[in-house]
């Protein structure tokens, strides 16, 4: 075959490519290429690298036999998750109420100051009751749990635990028709869904990558942890003896995470049997050696990059939202405020889901970032007449109770927050990565439908059994 090709003169890249393919004879030479490279590196290392003690190298992986074992892998994973939640909830209580009373004292001074200069009521309302209360509430409720949760999570990440989680989850994902690496991108979603969508780039097959993108939303991100943690600690351990409240709260949060994972697997399975049919591809997952994290540096970095930036975003949006919701709640049209009108518009639909109109509005207005949903909701409630002093988290519960909340309302809001559409940043990232309006819309529509279905079912079941 050499002769005709030797005289050939391809005049374009395509022609050259065709020539190369004829030379390759339609066979794949990738295996040969890779084989030759491996032989080269093996021979080089044989000469240049000496191992004093092979056993010492293997020692690093002894821990892996336990944390990725078929028997102990999952219990250890759940235990670690439980301990992280427990530390967060137990540790955040005291600083939260300290911050709240600190801000309360400042508010008293502000009030006195406004009275001293005879400031008009509306100005006092907008600035102190709207802006100040809104932002100070966000800080006192969101900062302490984040300051504990994110650094612990970062320490686990730098220690090398995440790939082990992926390794344990791998079998589950394989049987759901997704890619094993989806476990890794899912773990990343616990931090930030938008970053996790970017990380799906490590999945080679477009089909499996799309499944990973469409289901990433079902694990709670930075923006949703505060909502889940707060509602769980306020409502979920109400009837339990006080020494167990932290434990029960942690268990409820673990339950939320498990629900999220089950939904992830179920949706992956359905997608891989319908719109995104196919067989899972093979891959190798590397388990890097465990490394002792640089504790101080990791904690500082996590506090700066995560805790403070989440808080920052919440405040940037919460401050103007506080003003706007106060104005909407204090301008009356007919017999009620504009805000009340808007909320009552959503009420019938919301009640079917065990929520109320204010909650639905908070989720709609919270599209840009999940961390502002709760602040918006609270300011909505505050401006609708229920003036409650915010000096402790117990009083925050009173605001909810004054608006007819029960444990079922809290549970439904947690479920809705866990399952509903991803935030605006994530949706934008999905659009940039998939370049498809259709898949972007689906990535919001699928979770929304599931969120509505799950909260509706929960509510109707609770009513039917007379639990509420």
């Amino acid at each position, binding site marked *: 075959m050499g002769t005709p090709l030797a005289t050939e003169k391809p005049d374009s890249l395509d022609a050259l490519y065709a020539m190369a393919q004829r030379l*390759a004879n339609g066979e794949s030479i990738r295996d040969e290429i890779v084989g030759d490279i491996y032989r080269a590196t093996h021979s080089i290392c044989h000469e240049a690298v000496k191992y004093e003690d092979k056993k010492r190298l293997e020692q690093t992986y002894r821990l892996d036999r336990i944390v990725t074992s078929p028997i102990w892998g999952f219990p250890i994973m759940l235990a670690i998750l439980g301990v992280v939640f427990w530390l967060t909830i137990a540790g955040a209580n005291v600083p939260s109420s300290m911050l709240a009373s600190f801000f309360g004292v400042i508010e008293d001074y502000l009030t006195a100051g406004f009275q001293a200069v005879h400031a008009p009521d509306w100005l006092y309302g907008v600035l102190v009751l709207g802006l100040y209360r809104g932002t100070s509430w966000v800080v006192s409720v969101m900062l302490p749990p984040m300051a504990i949760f994110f650094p612990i999570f970062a320490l686990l990440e730098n220690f090398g635990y995440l790939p082990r989680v992926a390794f344990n989850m791998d079998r589950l994902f394989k049987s759901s028709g997704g890619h094993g690496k989806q476990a890794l991108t899912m773990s990343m979603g616990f931090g930030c869904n938008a970053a996790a969508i970017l990380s799906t*780039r490590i999945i080679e097959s477009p089909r499996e990558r799309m499944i990973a993108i469409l289901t990433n939303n079902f694990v709670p991100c930075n923006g949703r942890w505060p909502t889940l943690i707060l509602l769980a600690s306020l409502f979920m351990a109400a009837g339990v003896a006080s020494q167990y409240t932290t434990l029960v709260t942690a268990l409820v949060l673990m339950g939320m995470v498990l629900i999220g994972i089950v939904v992830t697997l179920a949706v992956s399975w359905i997608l891989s049997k319908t719109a995104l049919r196919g067989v899972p591809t093979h891959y190798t997952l590397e388990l890097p050696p465990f490394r002792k994290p640089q504790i101080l540096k990791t904690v500082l970095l996590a506090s700066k990059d995560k805790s403070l930036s989440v808080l920052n975003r919440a405040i940037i949006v919460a401050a103007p939202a506080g003003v706007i919701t106060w104005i909407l709640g204090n301008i009356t049209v007919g017999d009620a405020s504009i805000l009340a009108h808007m909320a009552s518009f959503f009420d019938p639909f919301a009640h079917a889901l065990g929520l109320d109109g204010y909650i639905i509005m908070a989720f709609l207005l919270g599209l840009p970032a999940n961390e502002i949903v709760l602040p918006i909701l609270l300011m909505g409630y505050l401006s609708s007449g229920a003036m409650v002093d915010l000096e402790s988290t117990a009083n925050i519960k009173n605001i909810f109770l004054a608006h007819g909340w029960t444990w079922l309302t809290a549970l439904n809001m947690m479920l809705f927050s866990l399952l509903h559409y991803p935030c605006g940043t994530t949706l934008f990232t999905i659009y940039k990565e998939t370049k498809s309006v259709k898949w972007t819309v689906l990535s919001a529509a699928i979770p929304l439908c599931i969120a509505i279905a799950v909260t509706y079912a929960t509510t109707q079941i609770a009513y039917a059994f007379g639990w509420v």
Partner: protein
Amino acid sequence: MMEKTIALAGNPNTGKSTLFNALTGLSQHTGNWAGKTVTMAAGHFEYQGQAYRIIDLPGTYSLYSNSTDEEVARNYIILEQPDVTVVVLDATSLERNLNLALQVMEMTNRVVLCINLIDEAMRLGVRIDVAKLQERLGVPVATISARKKIGIDGLLEKVGQVASGQLIPEPAPIVYSREIEEKIKMLEPHVVRLLGNRFPPRWVALRLLDGDTDLISTLKSPAGAPAAEAGEVMQLGNASCH
């Protein structure tokens, strides 16, 4: 003086981002798991009066563009042609890591190998003969610990020599089977005739034999337009998300 460009390539989880942070003083997020960096981050630093722009490429096991991150890394090296490509290797699993280094050395000769985690390797009793490696590979080799900031000066010394052209590495080519080598020889002159010497002809010939259609479309897009890639680079760390 012109700013020189350095690209950091390497397998996932070898400490590229840690080295990037050590050099630039930035705080690109680091984590002990494969595939943490999937986009490129850019930063700047100066060493001995020379300004450098440094790009943290996504960590990959190969550069055959199986997935988006491999394509991002490969296109950067081929199209942007950085002044120096530093391949970061994990000293504790050198053999596997060298596979990628050899692939990079097929794409450019301006390579410096940076063996990271050397402290870890010492602790585990792994002895690496650097002189032997340099002799076999034909490119400069530096050993460092990015975490403990050991050996950074030695690395930058070598990077500087390659960047300024004071040292021109001559990577030892991988010798393939006789059959493949013959086919490469037949294609090479045509590659040079069509593309000039802008891209390494031996490497392009090998990719064509391997049936790499992605490469054809990349090379065809307006003279392998580098502009499209520039948009991928995140300036100054990871500002994209909360």
